[in-house]
């Protein structure tokens, strides 16, 4: 759905946005965090290739940490940040200064871990959605993210995404203390919001979107 130029521009934009989030997180946890979004895609969920490892999180069975943030007004949709539970635990440990790269098999996500992850996702999703709003010069309203631990099975990737038609997928990587924690950000947008976004990108590229 995105051509190469649009994809490049969008990737650059979101990397600037998450860079700001990374600075904020670094200040909070008092250690250097780098956030990377190497790849941005605008896809319809039915187009996802199940063999594409980057989408394993949807098709593998296991526990997932999911944070979701609803936003609305002129630019509308819902943003999700998802990690396999194990990656979420590593990230929480790192933020709390418990530098363990491996975690025991029967690990638990404690209340404090969930609070840390809620804040991390809040900072990250706010940065992305807020900056999209600035970029589009549109008024936004959004609330605190909801967080939950869910058990994903092979059959319910569609439920995870609540049947949104087109989604922006940001493959996300947190680098801190030599650990690379991989997660995924999904931004489900209404069709009109997608058009607004593409129009603005095309205007910026000087190409004009039909």
């Amino acid at each position, binding site marked *: 759905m995105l051509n190469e130029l649009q994809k490049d521009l969008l990737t650059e934009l979101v990397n600037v946005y998450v860079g700001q989030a990374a600075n*904020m997180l670094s*200040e*909070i*946890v008092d250690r250097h965090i780098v956030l990377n979004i190497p790849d941005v895609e605008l896809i319809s969920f039915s187009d996802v290739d199940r063999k594409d490892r980057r989408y394993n999180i949807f098709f593998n069975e296991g526990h997932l940490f999911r944070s979701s943030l609803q936003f609305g007004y002129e630019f509308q949709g819902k943003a999700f940040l998802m990690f396999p539970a194990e990656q979420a635990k590593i990230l929480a440990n790192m*933020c*709390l200064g418990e530098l363990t790269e491996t975690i*025991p098999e029967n690990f*638990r996500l*404690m*209340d*404090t*871990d969930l*609070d*840390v992850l*809620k*804040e991390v996702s*809040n*900072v990250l999703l*706010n940065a992305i959605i*807020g900056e999209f*709003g600035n970029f589009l010069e549109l*008024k*936004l*309203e*959004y*609330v*605190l*993210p909801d967080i939950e631990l869910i058990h994903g099975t092979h059959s319910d990737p569609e439920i995870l995404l609540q049947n949104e038609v087109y989604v922006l997928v940001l493959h996300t990587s947190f680098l801190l203390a030599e650990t690379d924690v991989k997660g995924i950000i999904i931004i489900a947008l209404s069709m009109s919001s997608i058009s607004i976004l593409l129009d603005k990108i095309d205007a910026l590229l000087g190409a004009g979107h039909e």
Partner: protein
Amino acid sequence: MNNLLSQALKKANIGMLIVDRQLKVVLWNGWLERFTGKNAEEVIGLNLLEVCPRFKSSMYQNILQNALYHGQSRFCSSALHKAFILPREGEDEYIFRQNMHVEPLYLEDHSYALIQITDMTNTNTRVYKLKNLIKELETEYTTIKKSARMSKHLSLHDVLTGLPNRLAYNDRLAWSISNAQRHDSKLAVMFVDADGFKQVNDTYGHDVGDQVLMEMAKRFRETIPSTDMVARLGGDEFTILSHLQNDQEAITIAKKLDAAFSTHFKIAGNHINLSISIGISLFPTHGQEPSELLRYADQAMYTIKKNGKNGYGIYEPEHVEEF
């Protein structure tokens, strides 16, 4: 209704305060009064940074600006921030943990930030204690597992040479025989004894004797294929279990073992010459039972000893075929 609302604000079990765009406090609820000892009357109208010095940090000012100017909601966890509002004087500020929610509010053309403070001190203490307990249990479990592994190793190995002991050898022999039966393959059981080891102990002492045994174990290990097994039964007695392509191969291995002892041992400045006697029994030629095969190999070894030591021989029902 307004009266009910103000009662609710007074009694709510969370801290609630509202600031305007100039960060002037416009609401300060009962929880904050109780926690800080500062009454609403003395706080309202003051700048938040004067009332709550923690908000002087640029991080928190950014959070408030984002709520006031960009409508952003924000959650800050006690695990990362500890506390935002300090207690009344005389209380230890370091023990308190608080979560903070910042939400934008709008009235007519003005925007405000609602700051909600939830006390997390007890939750954090509970989680901290639970984490410590889990850590202790993990350490305990690792120690137990390690000591169980160690006991298992000790129960199956000879302490001096580190070789498997009689128990481990018997176990492996029984397993190898049943495996060989299924695959129609051949085995050799070798009984090896050092010639004149008692003399080594008597002449050089037990410390040197122990070092000789360790050196013997090393030479055995280096000589036999890695798939075969050497064990120490006790004293200067060793057994070897070899997997064979044919019976003749047992002789080849025995020759190699013999050759491995052609050079003297150099221990604590002493040059010690030591030969070995090897008795061999074969599976399936001589039997199917582990004890039977060991007994025949032992008999073959004694025949070698009787006939002048330093050699190897295969068990024969009537006599030992010597080489």
